[in-house]
């Protein structure tokens, strides 16, 4: 019987599982963590390097004894971007006694919000959706929310726009993930931001955007702010380049300048769009390997240590994965240093205390990570990058959104 075979297979796996589990170190403690993310399925191009980053950093922590004798055991599971599977993974992690949880998608973070509340467990998602924070005390965004990024990008547009009101269009993902930040941008305009949103375009699986781009151009749009994933942006950029509508320099009159939020950019965009990505502006809170520094050296060394290929090593999603692992490790370290037991409650307290003099600067981000009872976004600073000669280069110094505080 199929059923029986499944059961015996389960049995076999369980036996193997127990026999091969590394024997527990007698002196140190094991701190269990869980992560559920999309390694396959939608958005797996981001999820895959992200999981590698988390995995590698925790291995590094264990091998170099960052926590002394203590070890971190982080269970990583693929949920294929399905909330049901995420919930199953989360329940299992709880059964196994995790002290902190790492999540991934917007949908599952919102879906499990109430469970996080009830379990009173600190959560670091890979989704920077501002809606995650509504009615929630336990979700910590690693970096500034999409809304904040989009508003900051809008402010950048307004600041650098010459003459009159800046006319922009929004190119967004056809889901709540895409639509949420647009509302905040509209609020910012009400609060006095000198900008006009001419049109909000929700893309589909379009093979041709010529008509849309022409329409925008006819309406006098000069800037297109994108908040979606790379693939549709790349199609649009290619179309725009083909039509000769892409601005050669920032804000060129009569042409379109493209700007995007976190998930629109990165090396993946360059890989997809090729030369058409030239001059694309992008906000990100992570250090990129195309702008070498101390942090990126460490990131590359970590990737090398665990035999990751170049693509993963240079991905900003790899950096994002390392960053959440760093934050968790730091929280555990601080809890231990204070002599408290490492559990859900104390870790949550420690996360909330990560501000002021206790702000934490991981090597992967451009600014310090700060959390408090009211501040739920880790890195508040944003770096604007733009594509020059096929790599993302820094534009100016890190910025911070001003209007976001006004509209909250």
């Amino acid at each position, binding site marked *: 019987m199929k059923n029986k075979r499944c059961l015996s297979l389960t049995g076999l796996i369980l036996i193997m599982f127990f026999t091969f589990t590394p024997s527990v170190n007698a002196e140190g403690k094991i701190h269990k963590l869980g992560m559920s993310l999309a*390694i*396959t*399925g*939608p958005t*797996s*191009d981001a*999820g*895959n390097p992200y999981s590698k980053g988390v995995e590698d950093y925790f291995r590094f922590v264990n091998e170099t004894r960052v926590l002394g004798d203590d070890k971190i055991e982080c269970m990583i599971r693929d949920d294929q971007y399905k909330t049901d599977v995420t919930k199953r993974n989360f329940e299992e992690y709880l059964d196994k006694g995790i002290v902190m949880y790492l999540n991934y998608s917007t949908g599952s973070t919102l879906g499990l919000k109430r469970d996080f509340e009830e379990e009173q467990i600190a959560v670091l998602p890979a989704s920077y959706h501002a809606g995650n924070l509504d009615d929630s005390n336990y979700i910590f965004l690693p970096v500034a929310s999409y809304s904040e990024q989009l508003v900051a990008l809008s402010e950048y547009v307004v600041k650098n726009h010459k003459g009159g009101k800046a006319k922009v269009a929004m190119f967004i993902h*056809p889901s709540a993930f895409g639509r949420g930040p647009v509302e905040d941008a509209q609020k910012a305009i009400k609060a006095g931001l000198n900008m006009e949103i001419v*049109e*909000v*375009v*929700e*893309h*589909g*699986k*379009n*093979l*041709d955007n*010529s*008509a*849309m781009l*022409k*329409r925008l151009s*006819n309406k006098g749009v000069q800037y297109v702010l994108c908040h979606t994933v*790379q*693939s549709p942006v*790349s*199609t649009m950029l*290619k*179309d725009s*380049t*083909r*039509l*000769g509508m892409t601005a050669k320099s920032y804000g060129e009159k009569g042409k379109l300048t493209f700007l995007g939020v976190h998930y629109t950019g990165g090396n*993946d965009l360059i*890989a*997809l*769009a*090729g*030369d058409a990505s030239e001059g694309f502006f992008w906000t990100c809170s992570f250090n990129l390997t195309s702008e070498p520094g101390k942090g990126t050296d460490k990131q590359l060394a970590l990737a090398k240590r665990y035999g990751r*290929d170049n*693509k993963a090593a240079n991905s900003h999603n790899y950096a994002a994965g390392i960053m959440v692992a760093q934050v968790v490790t730091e929280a555990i370290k601080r809890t231990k240093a204070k002599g408290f037991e490492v559990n859900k409650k104390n870790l949550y307290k420690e996360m909330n205390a990560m501000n002021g003099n206790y702000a934490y600067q991981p090597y992967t981000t451009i600014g310090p990570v700060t959390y408090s009872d009211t501040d739920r976004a880790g890195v508040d600073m944003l770096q604007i990058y733009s594509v020059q000669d096929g790599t993302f280069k820094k534009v100016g110094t890190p910025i911070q959104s001003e209007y976001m505080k006004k509209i909250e």
Partner: protein
Amino acid sequence: MSYFFQIVVSGVVVGSIYALAALGLVLIYKSSRVANFAHGQIIAAGAFITYFLTITIGIPIFFSFLASMIITFFLAMSVERIFLRRLIGEPIISVIMVTIGLGSIIDGLIYLTPFGTENYSFPAFLPTTPLTLGGVSISWTQLVGVIITFILIGGFSWFFKKSTVGISMRAVSDDQFGAMSVGISVPKVFGLAWATAGLSAAAAGCIIGNITGLNFDTLHAFGIVVFPVLILGGLDSILGAVVAGIIMGLIQQLASGYLDGNWGLSGTGEVMPYIILLIILLFKPHGLFGIHEIERV
């Protein structure tokens, strides 16, 4: 007005690419009455093989394009031989599910490679300056795509009309027992139908991959996206696929060109083809060019 023409031209271009993607489905259905739900995966595989041959092995892109068509030709043929040959005569639901299962298996195999999760793009091999005519522009990639589409479709139409093999394929689709009695090998015809479908899928994959970039999710979604085209065209008509493809392309472009942004609507280009399809099916249950089957008890 130039806006309208641009939409129409885009619609025709997108529509012909749909037609090419649907062609493989038509070829399979025409001879073996199988709806292939693994078509999207073969499209993706074709695109990835081309990329692999071009970048990793270093063959000029034109030859790797041909090579990938040949590889998918044999790949699809062996898929038919191994999996579908046994299912001749089984109910339609079994056959549909086998192709769905196959799609899932190919998914798994592609996830084994870096192509499953990462993004790539073909090297630019065509001029990047667009062709512009009276305010309407079309890219070389799209133009070449359309030309290849029509060459392939023309070729297949000729093949079915004139060549002996093509005529025997049509004979099989018309009446399997009759075809057998005049000495046509039905299994061979099925194999050939799959093989040619694989070939056209690789072509479609390369063209779509050139436009969107190589992302597995985007590419294999086309296997489902073209089903309305297939049904609207009437399942077994090549001409139907072309007409339906262009109609669907136009509907999609017109919907996103005129509906989106008005009355608070958005993303209508995604869903309109399905709505129109349902309406048309209510009046013409066998699509535009489908053959009305005569059923007897």
